[in-house]
Every structure is written in C-alpha cells, then in structure tokens.
C-alpha cells in the first residue's frame, strides 16, 4: 500500500502533523517506536504554558491523551506503534521493523519528527549505573512508576532539570541539589521558585566534579566553576546521593535525515546539527518535511505548531488543498509560532532560526 505521507515519530510534532494532514485529506502512516503514542508527553505531568485556546494549563500527559485519541479516531491515519524506522530508501520507501517483522512501506512524502536525545557530560565516573538522563528518570518514575533511587543530584537547571526535580519530590525522592554551571538558572523562574520553596538548593556556578562508587553511584562531589566552567580546587563538596541525573541539554535525532541526504547545518542555539528547511517545514530534499526537536531543540507547544504547518504543507504539496487556503492557514499558524517565540526567553532559539532562514534565503538568491 502506498501512503501520501509517512510520519516518523509519534510525539507532539508527529501527532499534530499527522492529524493536520489527515484532516485535509492526506492518507497517513504514523510510525512510532513505542507502543504508546505521545512521545515525551506521556511522562510530562506539569502544566503547559502558552495560550488557553491551545493547551495552556493542561498537563502534558493529558495533551498526549487528547492527541492520541484524535489520531486513533482519524480514519485516514494508519498507526504503526511499537515499530521502528530502520532506514530511508531513495525510492521513497522506509524499512520498518514491527513486532510482526521487517517490511517496507512507501509514500509520496515524509515527515521526520524523530525528536531528540539527551546529552552526556564529561566527569569521572559518568558511566556508572545511577547516572541517568533526566528524561530517563522521568520515564522510569512517571510511566513505569519506579523511583530512580532515594537521593538525587540534578545536573542542569534548564526547564527539564527543574521540572524533573519537582517531580522527583512528588514521587517521594529527595533532591539534594541542582547544580548549574552558568551564573543564572537556565529554565523559567516560576519552575525555579517552585523547587526552591521545597528546600531544594539551586547552586549556580557549580558543576559535578565526579561520581563515586564501584558498581553503581554511591555519592557525588560538586564544586564551584569559574567563568570558563573550570572547577575551582578547594570548593569541593560531597553529596550523599545514589542517583545523578543529567539535564544538560538535548541534541536533535537526525539519523534518518542524514541518511535521506537532507542538507544539515550546525546551529548550536538549536542543539547541534539540524536540517535546513523552509517556512513550510520542507527540507532541501523535496517531499521530506521535519518538525519538533529533530528540527531544532525547543519545546512541545512550538513542536505542535511546527507539526501542524508541516502537515498542512504536505496537503498542499500533493494537491489536497488549494494554494490560497494553504497560505492563509499556514500564515496564521506561523503567526502563532512567532508570538510564542517572541518573549525575551526565546532569544536563543530565535537566533538559531534566523540562521536557518538566512541560509535558505541565501540559497534561493543564488
């Protein structure tokens, strides 16, 4: 069977993209590695920011449930859950491995919404069991109902580090400290204040020096760092922890994009190598679209909007909706997107996207 669109990744971007496309007449195959669709939403117990007309004030788990229900109720979407995308082939086919075996599916267009992976940090003992990604800890606790340990050191004070610290406390786990190498908290102040009043110290200009233990983590040493993030000898402090949680950032998962020969570029503000794509979320390989963290590390509200733009663009590309209606709808979504990104805390991602826009415009000019 040939589909109009194959969406790889059933997180906020992929689900929104699949829905938008299907609602406009596109026949979609949606593939996700996990049995349960939703991506990272399935473990996000915090309430979202953004607009109330969208999902502000709604917890991530609930947003995931709504998107999942909508996707499952949409007759034009075929869901391949528990299915991994193994490789993209130039004849517009995708090799997939489902519980029933390996097969190939083909489509006119693709939307890669493959998300991101957590970054590692260099320190002695960083490979010991007990050093976990913050997202992994969130999955273990909030999806599987298992605490990661009894006492945690959180490394990184971005929104993920702050939110997971709060959630650890909700699960009855002690958080000894959050260390942040920068002089300022990385995430939203409201999240920081929320964990701070629980008595969890946020130590800016601090980092982890080493993890202790032979078989698994039995403790950690933190220290102050200077402006160049070098540890300052003599400032070491030992913490009694059995879990070290790394919330030191994400990097886009672009394996399939590289394989498909999409032009990529390094944009540090967006987390690393990202695809070059235009205002329709289409890459320089016609028919291959991107959305969500795979297109640049941001957050779920913007990922959903980018997914919708991509889904709509696919519908227009294969002639399911007239050009004018497409442009009107896309411009409305783009306006929402730029409003979400217009605040002072979005400076970094704005710089990143401006770089990509400049690249695209430069190439068009040639």
């Amino acid at each position, binding site marked *: 069977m040939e589909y109009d669109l194959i969406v790889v990744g059933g997180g906020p971007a992929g689900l929104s993209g699949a829905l938008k496309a299907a609602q406009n007449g596109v026949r979609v195959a949606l593939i996700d590695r996990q049995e349960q669709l939703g991506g990272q939403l399935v473990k996000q*117990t915090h309430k979202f920011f953004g607009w109330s007309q969208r999902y502000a004030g709604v917890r991530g788990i609930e947003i995931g449930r709504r998107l999942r229900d909508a996707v499952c109720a949409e007759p034009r979407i075929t869901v391949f859950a528990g299915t991994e995308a193994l490789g993209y082939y130039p004849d517009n086919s995708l090799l997939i491995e489902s519980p029933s075996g390996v097969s190939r599916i083909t489509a006119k267009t693709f939307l890669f919404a493959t998300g991101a*992976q957590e970054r590692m940090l260099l320190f002695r003992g960083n490979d010991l069991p*007990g050093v976990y990604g913050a997202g992994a800890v969130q999955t273990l606790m909030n999806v599987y109902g298992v*605490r990661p340990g009894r006492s945690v050191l959180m490394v990184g004070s971005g929104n993920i580090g702050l939110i997971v610290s709060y959630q650890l406390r909700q699960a*009855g786990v002690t958080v000894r400290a959050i260390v942040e190498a920068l002089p300022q908290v990385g995430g939203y102040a409201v999240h920081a204040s929320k964990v701070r009043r629980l008595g969890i110290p946020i130590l800016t200009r601090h980092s982890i020096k080493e993890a202790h233990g032979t078989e698994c983590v039995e403790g950690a040493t933190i220290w102050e760092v200077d402006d160049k993030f070098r540890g300052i000898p003599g400032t070491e402090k030992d913490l009694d922890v059995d879990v070290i949680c790394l919330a030191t950032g994400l990097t886009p998962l672009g394996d399939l994009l590289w394989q498909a020969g999409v032009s990529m570029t390094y944009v540090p503000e967006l987390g690393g190598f990202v695809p070059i794509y235009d205002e329709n979320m289409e890459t320089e390989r016609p028919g291959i679209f991107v959305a969500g963290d795979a297109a640049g590390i941001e957050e779920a509200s913007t990922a959903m909007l980018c997914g919708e733009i991509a889904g709509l663009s696919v519908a227009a590309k294969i002639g399911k909706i007239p050009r004018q209606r497409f442009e009107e709808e896309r411009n409305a979504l783009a306006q929402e997107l730029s409003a979400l990104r217009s605040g002072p805390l979005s400076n970094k991602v704005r710089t990143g996207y401006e770089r990509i826009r400049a690249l695209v415009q430069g190439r068009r000019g040639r």
Partner: protein
Amino acid sequence: MTGLRIEEHPILDFPKRKKVKFFFEGREMEGYEGEPIAAALHAAGVKVLHHSLKLARPRGFFCAIGNCSSCLMIVDGVPNVRACTERLREGMSVERQVGRGPSLTGR
C-alpha cells in the same frame, strides 16, 4: 516488591498489573507483566545490567527509550536485547551481558 515502587502519586495513577516471575542470573524475581525488563530490575534493586566491551565497566540504564545501548542484556539466550524497552513476560530469563555477548552462531 521494594520501596522503589510508587504506590501513590499526587497526579498519576498506576493501574494494578499482573505480577509475573522471571529469572535474573538464575535468581527468581518478581515484576509486572508488560513493564520494561529494566524497570522490573530497577525496582528489585538491580542497577548493573551490562558490562562494557573493553574495560568491563558496569553499565546501567541511561536513556530509557531504546536509544543508547547502555542496557543491552541477554534475554532467553538472545544477546543485545534492550532491557529498557523489552517487555517483561512470565518465566523470562534475563542475564547481564558482557561486551557483545555470546555468539548465536557459535563462531
């Protein structure tokens, strides 16, 4: 099961699931059917799942979504199974893997 299981949560509900027995390094253990092997082991206090290829350093789970290959184990004799995504079944045999694990072809 140990104190690492969350019984009550302010936001989430964890539905009651069926308990199953499985074997870790020949030792009988209990977990919930359908949860990832790594979750069942973690709840039972087992953090070391693998030993690294060159230095045989202990490895635990890291990403929990089947990405990083830190948790590769031997499951029912099959090496390189991702314990963080493979679902637990009654009677499963789970062993720690060293490096690449045993060859299936005997070579």
